[in-house]
């Protein structure tokens, strides 16, 4: 039986089911119990677990992260939620020094089973300090795992897996993903948190994307079929430790690769994947690996600036057509069609009727 729920509901379900199973799970958040309940993701927790496991977080991001690390070392499984990636910047010392290194320094005697949820803002004029994803920063720290679930099924299954894991894990959730709907089993289940997932089989070109960008890639892949380009699409899912085996395999077949960063293209996830692929399969590639990603500047508030800013399906199609040397004549039609479609949607909301909260 199908049961269609949103990503936010899927996260919520994972948190409820997991914390009913494991009494050591505790929650930290600013307004952990408030009416908006982290965009619905922590909703009703208080109905299922004792209220002392919902720990209100004063506006003290650094200490609270350290407190969660200490609590994890001493045997709890804290789940820390930040409404925006940016707020965690106050806690980088705790994350990079204490959370990520306690196991290593103690030669394995300490463990830090901690989850830090970071939510990426986008849309409705969030502006430069409420819309950064900064995933490379977290991914570059050995000792941290970094997960970026795209779909509701993963939102639940990867969260469940992360909760069972014994490492500090940063889970980056894109606000737009919160609205994705999908069939998600009601029972408790676990998804792998080790590797990317192939979501479209194809033979012409491998595309790697993650989080919200995967939606854009799917849209693009659909259209590209019309040009007889069959995309093999991977949803990356795990940014650290980075495991590109399946991508390598795919590239051996397609011999073409496009990587789409959610954050900055420069110093992005794509640059590491591209470098690794070349190191191993240089001679296989028949055209240079391409990367798309955010441009090298902050994201301003006004929609006026956003026109060509975020990578989207149109840009992906254009880039793929460039890779295949497809003439403008041939590609014009589908590009126009999808550009048209996109231009009817407001540029700064996940869907037309969206009204927040942001």
């Amino acid at each position, binding site marked *: 039986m199908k049961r269609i729920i949103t990503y936010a509901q899927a996260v919520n379900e994972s948190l409820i089911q997991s914390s009913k199973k494991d009494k050591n799970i505790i929650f930290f958040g*600013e*307004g952990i119990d*408030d*009416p*908006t309940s982290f965009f619905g993701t922590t909703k009703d927790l208080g109905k299922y677990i004792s209220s002392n496991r919902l720990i*209100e977080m*004063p*506006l*003290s*991001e*650094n*200490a609270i992260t350290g407190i969660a690390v200490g609590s994890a070392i001493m045997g709890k499984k804290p789940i820390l939620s930040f409404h925006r990636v*940016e*707020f965690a910047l*106050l806690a980088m010392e705790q994350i990079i020094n204490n959370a990520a290194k306690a196991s290593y320094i103690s030669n394995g005697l300490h463990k830090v089973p901690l989850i830090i949820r970071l939510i990426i803002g986008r849309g*409705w*004029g*969030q*502006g*430069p*300090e*409420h819309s950064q994803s900064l995933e490379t920063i977290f991914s570059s720290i050995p000792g941290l795992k970094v997960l970026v679930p795209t779909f509701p099924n993963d939102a639940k299954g990867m969260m469940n897996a992360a909760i069972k894991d014994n490492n500090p894990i940063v889970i980056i959730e894109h606000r737009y993903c919160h609205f994705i709907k999908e069939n998600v089993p009601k029972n408790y289940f676990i998804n792998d948190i080790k590797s990317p997932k192939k979501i479209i089989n194809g033979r012409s070109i491998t595309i790697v994307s993650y989080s919200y960008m995967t939606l854009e890639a799917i849209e693009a892949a659909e259209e590209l079929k019309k040009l007889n380009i069959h995309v093999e699409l991977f949803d990356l899912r795990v940014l650290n430790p980075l495991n590109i085996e399946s991508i390598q395999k795919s590239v051996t077949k397609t011999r073409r690769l496009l990587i789409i960063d959610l954050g900055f293209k420069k110093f992005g996830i794509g640059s590491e994947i591209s470098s690794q692929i070349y190191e191993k399969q240089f001679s296989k590639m028949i055209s240079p690996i391409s990367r798309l990603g955010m*441009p*090298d*500047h*902050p994201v*301003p*508030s*006004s*929609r*006026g*600036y*956003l*026109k*060509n*800013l975020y990578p989207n399906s149109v840009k992906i199609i254009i880039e793929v057509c460039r890779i295949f040397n497809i003439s403008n004549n041939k590609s014009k039609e589908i590009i126009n069609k999808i550009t048209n479609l996109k231009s009817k949607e407001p540029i*700064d909301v996940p869907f037309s009727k969206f009204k*927040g*909260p*942001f």
Partner: protein
Amino acid sequence: MLLEKKNKKTYLNLYKKLLLIRIVEEKIVSEYSKNLMRCPVHLSIGQEACAVGVCGALSLSDKVFSTHRCHAHYIAKEGNIYKMIAEIYGKEDGCCNGRGGSMHLFDKTKNFISSIPIVSSGIPLSVGSSLNDKLNNKKSITCSFFGDGSLEEGVFHESLNFASINNLKNLFVCENNLFSVYTDIKLRQPNRSFKKLAEAHKVDYYEMDGSNAIEIYLKVLKLKKLIIKRSKPLLLVLNTFRYREHCGPNIDDHLGYRKNSYIKSWLKKDPINITFKNLLKNQIIDESKNDILIENIKKNINSIFLKAEKAKLPKSKDVKKFVYQN
């Protein structure tokens, strides 16, 4: 409250500013649902007296820093209102050319230096400003506004400590509306006087009700002198009340996160009303003048909104500018 006649004009000006802020923000409320102001808005309705009282006592050369909830401070420090509204509309004419949105208002020409939407993040900036004044032997002071939530951030303490040991002329203004978003201060801080926070850093302290703009103004005039004379920072806590939801144009009291009795008691102390009655009693204003005043402001504000609404969006080709300075 007995008001000195010779300062009539000043008091009237304070009142005008209160009205101005209220009218601007209520206009935001009424326009917001049109979905043309496409950015978060943190309204100051109910808290206007804090901004007006404090900024009224500042000179042009005094600097101001603010937070996500910066509309009132910007207007009270005489920031250009058209540029503010244009910013909220995301227009090229905005004070940040549409780059910041409502949480980044600034007007350098008025020494309204910066609004920083990360809680407490603007406080050390304001200390940097007063440090410069000290190094440059300037008499002016720097004022930073922030909410009760700021008191929980480590950087607040670090900043007060530094300002204290360096004898900097900072006026730290905490507008205590008892809430951070939906969360009561009781769940976030122990029940102790805020004075203790100031004393921890040997910073001077004053606390008062945040509803009466004239009272605040008169007090801050004195506090400013004290800051300059003693060359020491001061923490001023103003107890106040936010009428509307944390972010957005609506009233959200149906959610029940604030007690009814609490809401009622504060609604009795509306800052516009208090000052209006005060002026009335002191015969500085009368009902009909008041009506005209309001009418004029509204007209002016309406036309500003109209102009802002019609103004151009920034050009996407400009998006790469000013990442770096030459």
